[in-house]
């Protein structure tokens, strides 16, 4: 892997901008050239995927910290720079984004309506999400985050589907909810920036520099509250979660995949990197509240899943439930739990994306997502059933798939801190098993139904999401150290760097 550690080459920029370049290229492709359009989208995401896999492998864990750094001063008077870099925390999420981005292109392969616009927006979306993970600058982080909101809205209202709620309602709810959350986020970030300037006399947006600023405890509490509202909305913390099931239900497959798979994780990522490491005292102050609400997430959403009839609502609420684990991991504020939280974000991302890809595929062919309409599909579409099973089993935390090590680590980390909350939260594994198996059973198993005989199984490009995401689920499930080691490098080095354990105290 020596060739890739060449320090001069801007790998991250290439990874980040290739989809964007693809999107720009698409503008000049005539809209009739459907095949070319798809090919460009696929190639540009594939390039990013391959490079991010290489980076994932080439990341030097013995050194740790931010690697593959790039710095260009961007806005001088604000102290903003286009600075990229990955560490153990962002590395898995970068990989995740590209995995899902690439799969999402293929999951949309059969889209026939306004193909050109769709892929342009999709590529912008992928770029935006990726940007938040590779940037080291707060301003750029926010910029990328908000960039994605509008494409999502447009994609939902044009290519979405109307079921329980109209797609217009779903799209608007998603957008406004997240934007208002981001208003608090923005306020918190500006306050952070301004306060750091007043304390140090340097205008900087560099997250790592901000980590070393001695903010007062009072400010940290307010700052974390503001950031927390934004990030927790994004990660769909109870009671700010209701955008999520409706949004996913309304959105087209690719958007659901990216949204549930990675976009949501920006919330957790931000909470960790910015909330926790920049404002540790604030995090300590609010952590118990987050833990309580996280338990609410896990159990409440899991219980709701039991009575859902729409496949996407099941997975939507399920993702709310799983994010509860991430939140409780973050709230426990120790290396183990945070390692687990990040791993869980990765694992859940892959799993949710796979789920949505499969549901999307099924919906595309059957035009329904109503669980009672199905039954015995494993007779007609066994490959699709395999996808459903993989995603479902990962969802219920089956060992051997990526989510088990993650959940287990969270539990270990959180258990020492919030015993009662964790015990309640872990009960989620029972409910998850119930609703997942109920859903899988009712959709896939049971007597063959004549009406679904016409369904075609996965074939050609439709295989790609299952193969890519399924491989990842299994690989990281059997060899969890592949995922855990980089994460651990990132988290421990940040703990050491910020002296977090001394601020937080306890928890170890």
């Amino acid at each position: 892997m020596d060739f890739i550690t060449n320090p001069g080459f801007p790998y991250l920029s290439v990874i980040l901008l290739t989809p964007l370049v693809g999107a720009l290229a698409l503008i000049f492709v005539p809209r009739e050239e459907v095949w070319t359009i798809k090919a460009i989208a696929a190639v540009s995401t594939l390039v990013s995927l391959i490079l991010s896999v290489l980076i994932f492998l080439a990341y030097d864990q013995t050194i740790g910290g931010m690697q593959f750094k790039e710095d260009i001063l961007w806005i001088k008077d604000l102290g903003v720079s286009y600075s990229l870099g990955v560490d153990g925390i962002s590395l898995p999420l970068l990989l995740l984004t590209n995995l899902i981005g690439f799969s999402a292109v293929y999951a949309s392969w059969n889209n026939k309506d306004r193909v050109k616009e769709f892929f342009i927006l999709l590529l912008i979306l992928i770029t935006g999400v990726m940007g938040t993970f590779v940037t080291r600058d707060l301003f750029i982080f926010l910029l990328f985050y908000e960039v994605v909101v509008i494409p999502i809205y447009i994609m939902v209202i044009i290519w979405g589907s109307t079921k329980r709620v109209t797609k217009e309602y779903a799209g608007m709810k998603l957008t406004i909810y997240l934007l208002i959350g981001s208003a608090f986020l923005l306020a918190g970030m500006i306050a952070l920036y301004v306060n750091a300037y007043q304390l140090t006399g340097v205008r900087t947006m560099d997250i790592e520099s901000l980590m070393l600023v001695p903010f007062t405890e009072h400010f940290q509490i307010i700052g974390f509250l503001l950031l927390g509202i934004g990030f927790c909305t994004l990660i769909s913390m109870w009671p700010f979660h209701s955008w999520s099931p409706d949004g996913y239900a309304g959105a087209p497959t690719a958007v659901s995949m990216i949204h549930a798979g990675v976009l949501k994780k920006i919330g957790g990522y931000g909470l960790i990197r910015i909330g926790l490491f920049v404002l540790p005292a604030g995090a300590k102050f609010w952590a118990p509240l987050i833990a309580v609400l996280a338990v609410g997430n896990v159990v409440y959403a899991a219980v709701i899943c039991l009575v859902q009839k729409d496949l996407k609502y099941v997975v939507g609420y399920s993702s709310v439930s799983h994010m509860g684990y991430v939140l409780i991991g973050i709230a426990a504020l120790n290396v183990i739990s945070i390692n687990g939280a990040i791993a869980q974000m990765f694992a859940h991302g892959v799993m949710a994306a796979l789920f949505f890809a499969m549901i999307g595929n099924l919906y595309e062919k059957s035009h329904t997502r109503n669980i009672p309409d199905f039954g015995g599909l494993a007779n007609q579409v066994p490959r699709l059933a395999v996808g459903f099973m993989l995603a479902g089993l990962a969802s219920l935390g089956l060992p051997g798939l990526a989510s088990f090590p993650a959940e287990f680590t969270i539990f270990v980390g959180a258990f020492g801190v919030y015993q009662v909350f964790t015990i309640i939260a872990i009960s989620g594994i029972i409910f998850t098993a119930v609703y997942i198996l109920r859903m899988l059973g009712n959709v896939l198993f049971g007597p063959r139904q004549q009406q679904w005989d016409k369904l075609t199984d996965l074939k050609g490009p439709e295989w790609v999401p299952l193969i890519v995401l399924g491989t990842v689920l299994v690989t990281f499930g059997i060899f969890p150290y592949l995922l855990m080691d980089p994460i651990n490098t990132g988290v421990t080095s940040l703990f050491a760097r910020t002296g977090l354990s001394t601020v937080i105290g306890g928890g170890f």
Partner: protein
Amino acid sequence: MDFTLLVPEMFVAALACLLLILNLVAPRGERRGLVIFAVLGILAAIAVVAFNFDMFDGFLGRMYLVDAYASFFKILFLIAALLVCLTTMNYYKPLAGEGGEAYTIMLFATLGMMILVSAGELITLYVGLELMTISFYILTANLAGEDARSSEAGLKYLILGAISSAVMLYGFTLLYGVTGTTMIHEIAQFKEASPAFWLGVIFALSGFGFKIAAVPFHMWAPDIYEGAPTPVTIFLAVASKAAGFGVFVRFFLTAFPQHADHWIPVIAIMAAATMILGNLAAIPQQNIKRMLAYSSIAQAGYLLVGLVAASEAGVKSILFYAMIYVFATVGAFAVTIAFNNVSESDDIADYSGLARRSPLLAVTLLVCMLSMAGIPPLAGFAGKFYLFSAVIEQGFLWLAIIGLVMSMLSVYYYLSVVRVMYLGEVTDYSAIKLKGSMKLVLYVCMVLSIILGAYPGPLAELANIAARFMF
């Protein structure tokens, strides 16, 4: 008495007069040549102002200030005038006498604004203000037009504007009476605040508040913006408002800095009310011009936030935001002009399917509206970032939160338009033809809204230079 300092103003005055004469010579109904002439003239004026951008001098002592702050605004007015002139090429209705008078009056209004932002003294300020306002009365009423709504708007504007300026004038007289001077910087030396002084301040505040359409002095704006011919609406919303801010900021920061603790909270409340009301009232609107009118009220609220900061960073952010606001607003209104041209309608419902009829119009409207809403990477985001970071620096976190939440809320009504454009039922598939000048305006506004957001550095640097002169 260095008259060279007045070259830009004299140039614009001369241009206005020249246009008036040309209008007499040129064939009736001929608009194109006049516009080109005006545009070239304005470009030259911009060059003249820009050439002496970074200077500081006063004509007749500090009566008439020529500094980067004023120059920044002058460039802004001239750019606005330029863009508005270009949009009129596509405007189907006769504009003030089928020919050049409108441009002449527009240039006189521009002249008034230029005087306004340079004024270092109350009389000059008042004259500049009236020159601008009276020109706008005429433009709004569109005396040559047949549209009764324009006449109504003109009359309303005149009555309300006159009342407001009378109130403000009364405030000026009180200030003059209490301090014995009309020089703004000398008023600042008057430390003791009496009730009469405060009355003067408040009356002045009401006058400026009226010009920038800040709540609670905003009532005129929606009606007048809706009724006026759209190019005039643009000019009113962009340049007049910016001029109001230019003088407001200079006047308050130069004359009353020592009383800042008292008037800043009032302005903070005004800013909050403006942001809230503007955005909320825009939601139920069905007429796009009226919606944009409320939206521009909300924009004034954001700009006021910069004044609340009352710091160099605050002024800089106002300057920056005012400039990017020009492009966003002109772009959005220009789309309504182009659309109105073919459909004779300003109803949002009629925008249905615009994305298919003219992708350019739809994209421009989308970009400009989102820029106003402050969605990155568009210019409005950078602008809001400057504004709110300035005000948070002064401890007004609550104001920033209100502002940010409201700006995100505004996405709701902007996106409603987007939804109609992209998703609405299409009844008319005919493509919309645009004139070159209109396309130019649209491209300029859209591209600048993106570029200034993605790379705000240079403009911010200019604004910074300008803002430094205020302190």
